[in-house]
């Protein structure tokens, strides 16, 4: 009993520390990034919430603000950067484009919602959202973190990693994306080392997926030179 009480108190301190120093990974994709920069500047001052230190490395970040249009070509990079972040980690989807595709939702080149690739905690609507909207999203994320401590689990749903309805069979981007989802198998079906696997190393991925860096030839279906 005494031990449990101690653990809950320590959890409370951890949760407080986590939600009051959310360091974002620097990840601006489109015009939403301009509003994200405006939020960090003096007028709105993200530092009031302890989230001002935009880290250039995902290893040092707690939170990812997906600010802008995620194209299919960018999607594996988004997933990879998310996987490289240390737990616990949270994601804010900022703007209509990353929420569901926005104006490009019916297009061929844009991911229909970044929640197909990474789990998203908070959705901020807007095109682009005002800096106040992003601040409101950050405050909601702080509430979510506190709620997760009380529940003892994450609230967000995980993506399935099923791209069969969006990308054709044999698409190099689809193969790359599927290799970034559990159970993290190589192309020959052998399990990959979760620590040193191809998740954060492009060379490993290319040696395991021959021809992944070139598009298949229209006639033969074989991978050809770029």
């Amino acid at each position: 009993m005494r031990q449990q009480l101690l653990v809950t108190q320590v959890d409370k301190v951890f949760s407080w520390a986590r939600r009051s120093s959310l360091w974002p990974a620097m990840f601006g994709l489109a015009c939403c990034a301009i509003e994200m920069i405006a939020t960090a500047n003096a007028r709105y001052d993200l530092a009031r919430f302890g989230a001002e230190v935009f880290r250039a490395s995902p290893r040092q970040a707690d939170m990812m603000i997906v600010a802008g249009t995620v194209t299919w070509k960018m999607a594996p990079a988004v997933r990879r950067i998310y996987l490289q972040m240390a737990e616990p980690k949270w994601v804010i989807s900022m703007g209509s484009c990353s929420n569901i595709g926005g104006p490009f939702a019916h297009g061929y080149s844009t991911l229909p919602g970044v929640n197909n690739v990474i789990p998203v905690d908070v959705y901020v609507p807007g095109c682009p959202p005002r800096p106040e909207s992003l601040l409101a999203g950050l405050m909601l994320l702080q509430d979510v973190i506190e709620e997760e401590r009380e529940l003892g689990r994450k609230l967000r749903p995980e993506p399935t990693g099923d791209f069969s309805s969006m990308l054709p069979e044999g698409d190099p981007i689809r193969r790359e994306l599927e290799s970034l989802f559990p159970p993290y198998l190589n192309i020959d079906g052998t399990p990959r080392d979760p620590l040193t696997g191809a998740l954060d190393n492009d060379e490993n991925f290319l040696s395991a997926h021959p021809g992944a860096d070139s598009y298949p030839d229209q006639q033969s279906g074989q991978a050809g030179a770029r």
Partner: protein
Amino acid sequence: MAYGLNLAKGMLTTFKHLSRPPTTVQFPEEERDLGPRARTNLVWFVERCTGCSTCAQACPDGCILVETEPREDGSYLVNRYEIDFRLCMYCGLCAEACPYEAIQVGGSYTNVQTDPTQLYVNKDGLIGQANEYLESNDWTYPNGQKAVEQEVHAASERQHH
């Protein structure tokens, strides 16, 4: 000598800024005044809407859904009016197209959600948002016109019959 001079110049700029008031807006407590063309949420006022669907035709994203049925007196009953705020790019073309200014730009900009389906707002949700807007803004529409409280309530009631 030159080094000291440049340092003094820099410090002078710093001292100038010391006496200025801070620029930071303490957001949750105080909010900035919105510009007339700020891209905020759309507010739909059922008492002004005739169900002509001009907004839905003007929308480049196709995020507005309107479904109507004729009443006995020749006017339209709006059965469904839904806006997908996940898709909306807040361009305001619907508000520009509307001949009766029934849909206007100027609503809330802090409707963040943990569940994206909450951003798909149906008719009851939009009526609730509009009434909330009018109540907190002294029964004035975003375009500056005054709303008649009884008309708004009567129109909201009329939708259910």
